[in-house]
Structure formats: C-alpha cells, structure tokens
C-alpha cells in the first residue's frame, strides 16, 4: 500500500490552483468548495497539489491505485491541508500566519445504480471523515487588557456522505449530508491588533508613539458547536455555451445548529472554463456567492453578504519534474 501511494504522489497529475475570494476549489470537477463534492471517479487517478489564496492553504491529495471497472469496490484516499486560519489577507496585511491543519480521509464507490459497462450515466458515493486543528486569534475589547487577545486551538471533526449522479455527459448533481464540530470564526470581523508604545522625547518634551507587534485577529461573538450540513450541487455542461469549454455550476449549502451564530445558508453560481479535450478539469472559474442568504446570524457578525471570487489554475508538474 505504501509503495502505491508513493508512486501516485510522483505521478503526472499534479496541479496548482490559485484562488482569490470566497471558497471555491477544485479536485477534478469544478466544486463550490475545496472538499471535492464532485470528487468524480476519474479524479481518483489524480494526485493534486492545490493552493488556494483565499485561505492561504496548500493541499496534497492522494488515492489508492485504481483499476478500470471496479464497480462494487471501494477506493480510498486522503487529503492533507495546511493553511492560514485567517486567510491570505491577514498574511499580507500584518504578516501574521496562524496555522491550521486538516486531514480528510475518504472512501468512494461508483456505479451503484448505474452499470459501468453500459450507458452514459455514472453515479458514485463518497464518505469523508475529517479532523482539523486550527489556531485562532480572537480579540475581545471588553475583557481586561491582558486577556483581550487570546489564541486558542480549535479542533474540529466531522463526517459527511455525498451521492452524485452524472447524466449523459453534460449534467451532474450531488447531495451531501454531514455533521461536524464547527465555529463561526470565518463570520467574524477582521481586525489588526497592535501594541502602541508611547514615550516623551527628552529634547522637545513631545509625546511620541510607536506601533509594535501587529497581529491579525477576529472580533465578535465567537461560538463553537455541533452543526449539521446539507448541501446540493449542480454542474451543467451545455453544448450551447461554446465549444465544450464552458460550464455552469451552482450550489446551496445550509448549516443547521442550535446556535443561531452557527446557522448559515449560502447559495452560489459560477461559470467555469474547462480544459480542452479534458472538460473534467477546470482551468478557472468566476463564482458569485450570497453568504448567509437569510441573514440568520443577525447583525452580530458579518451577516448576509455577496462575494465574487475568481479562480485560476496553473499546472506545476513540469516545474517539479514529475
């Protein structure tokens, strides 16, 4: 097994994804997040190194060797992601890199309701288990000065299952259900916290101030809890959009929780540019997302907001000599 994984990591399927803005990643098929809702059967052939600039993450994926056919067999894989828990903006603005690590293991089986040897439809089921540890930086101005800036480590875990169906080579749909331990860190306000030192100039008597130790942090009502996730994805690849290079992707994701600050419904739609002769690979995409569409978190956090994100990808395989 170890031998096979090493072989696949050295394979030719490495790529890099550069993203800005809202969560929008890819595995092999355009997906609305980086967790591979459309981790299609063919994607099992590919190991991928992904960089997303919106959360400054680097992800390495690998899978067990895949045989043709294999209907009725499970294949297994894993992702390892290291990222800034505050996003690239915090790294740029304050130079702060707050680490976070996520391990995502999955099992996948295709051709449950379809026949691998017949027809043009294919379906697959993916079960994913993840555990992540993230260092948070929180600021609470109401607390005593020495306790205003805290840096707890948040450990989250979760499980989810996705069933996806592809019809006639142009339409894919996916349904995902899961449960996870989560927080609302991403919905809090971004702030920069600095320590100001003041001193009196001995020659002029003027009071002067210097800024030191600037840190990027989040501010607002921080909440942790268990949340249920429901998600629906659709991927349409109509010939009318062009010479088999453009596709439309859409999704709706709902997070259910007893904590109102953890509830959220996001909806998004995107236009993806696909690789010529390999439309299962997205070269780039523009996505418009309405986050917290029903403003269920209220005014305490960022609340309902519209984001536009742009994604591009550049293959790095030749650079690294694989």
């Amino acid at each position, binding site marked *: 097994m170890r031998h096979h994984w090493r*072989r*696949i*990591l*050295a*394979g*030719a*399927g490495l790529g890099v994804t550069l993203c800005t803005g809202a969560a929008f990643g890819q595995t*092999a098929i355009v997906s609305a997040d980086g967790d591979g809702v459309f981790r*299609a*059967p*063919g994607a*099992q*052939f*590919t*190991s991928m190194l992904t960089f997303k600039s919106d959360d400054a993450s680097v992800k390495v994926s690998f899978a067990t*060797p*895949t*045989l*043709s*056919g*294999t*209907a009725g067999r499970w294949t297994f894989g894993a992702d390892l992601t290291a990222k800034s828990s505050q996003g690239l903006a915090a790294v740029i603005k304050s130079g702060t890199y707050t680490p976070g690590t996520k391990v995502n293991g999955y099992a996948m089986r*295709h*051709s449950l309701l379809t026949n*691998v*040897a*017949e*027809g*043009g*439809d*294919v379906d697959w089921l993916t079960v994913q288990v993840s555990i992540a540890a993230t260092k948070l930086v929180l600021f609470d101005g109401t607390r005593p000065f020495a306790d205003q800036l805290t840096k707890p480590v948040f450990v989250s875990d979760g499980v989810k299952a996705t069933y996806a169906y*592809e*019809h*006639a*080579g*142009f339409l894919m749909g996916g349904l995902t259900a899961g449960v996870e331990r989560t927080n609302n860190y991403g919905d809090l306000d971004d702030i920069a916290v600095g320590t100001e030192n003041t001193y009196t100039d001995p020659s002029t008597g003027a009071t002067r101030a210097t800024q030191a130790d600037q840190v990027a942090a989040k501010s607002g009502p921080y909440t942790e809890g268990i949340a249920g996730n429901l998600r629906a994805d659709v991927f349409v*690849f109509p*010939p009318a959009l062009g010479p*088999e290079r453009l596709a439309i992707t859409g999704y709706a994701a709902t997070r259910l929780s007893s904590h109102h600050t953890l509830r959220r419904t996001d909806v998004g739609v995107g236009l993806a540019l*696909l*690789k010529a*002769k*390999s*439309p*299962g*690979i997205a070269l780039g995409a523009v996505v418009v997302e309405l986050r917290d569409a029903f403003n269920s978190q209220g005014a305490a956090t960022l609340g309902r907001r519209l984001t536009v994100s742009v994604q591009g990808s550049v293959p790095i395989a030749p650079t690294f000599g694989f």
Partner: protein
Amino acid sequence: MARKRPSTDRDGRPHGAAGKPLAIAFSGDVFTVFFELNNQEVTLRSDGGNTLARTFTSFPSGPLQVLLHAKGLNGTAWTLTMKYGADTVLDEQGTIASGFSHLVRALVLR
C-alpha cells in the same frame, strides 16, 4: 446475459500456447472504463495520471475481440493503443459523446 468465458489464469490471461507480449494502454480524463478481451473483463491499472494500462507477458495469437466502454463528460478525448510484440495492432482515438464511448473491434493477432 451470461457470456461464455474462456479458460484463463487468475490474471485473466488465456491458458494455452505461449505468445508475444500484449500491451494495452488507455489514456483520457474519463470517469470510468470497462474493457473486455474475448468477452471477458480485463482490468487496467492506473499509473497515477490519466492512463490505464496492462501488459500480458505472453499472449496467444489468434482472433481477439476487443470491447471498450468509457464514460465521461462530453468532449473528453481518449486514446487506446494495443501492441502485440513490436507491432501496433490497434490505435484508436475517440471523443466522449452523450456521456460515453463504445468501441468494438475484431483483431487477429499474428
């Protein structure tokens, strides 16, 4: 419908007289591939990229029925090559349409 299966070893190689090496390679970013030789499924193994391949070190000569069924997004290009010894006995290119490509070829290996 049950198909008549030829006598084979556990790797799917037909028993019988020794022959030349038979190398099969399929390339393409498809979702699934189903491949048959003489009405028997033969599994191809991923190389970690988008190529599935299999080599029989000794494959008997004679008639050979080849079947390929590949599924993927429309417009996905694929290639299938088969070499028997030093000879290329099959070199096919195709494009997925309506979600699949179906190929049947009758060869004679000499």
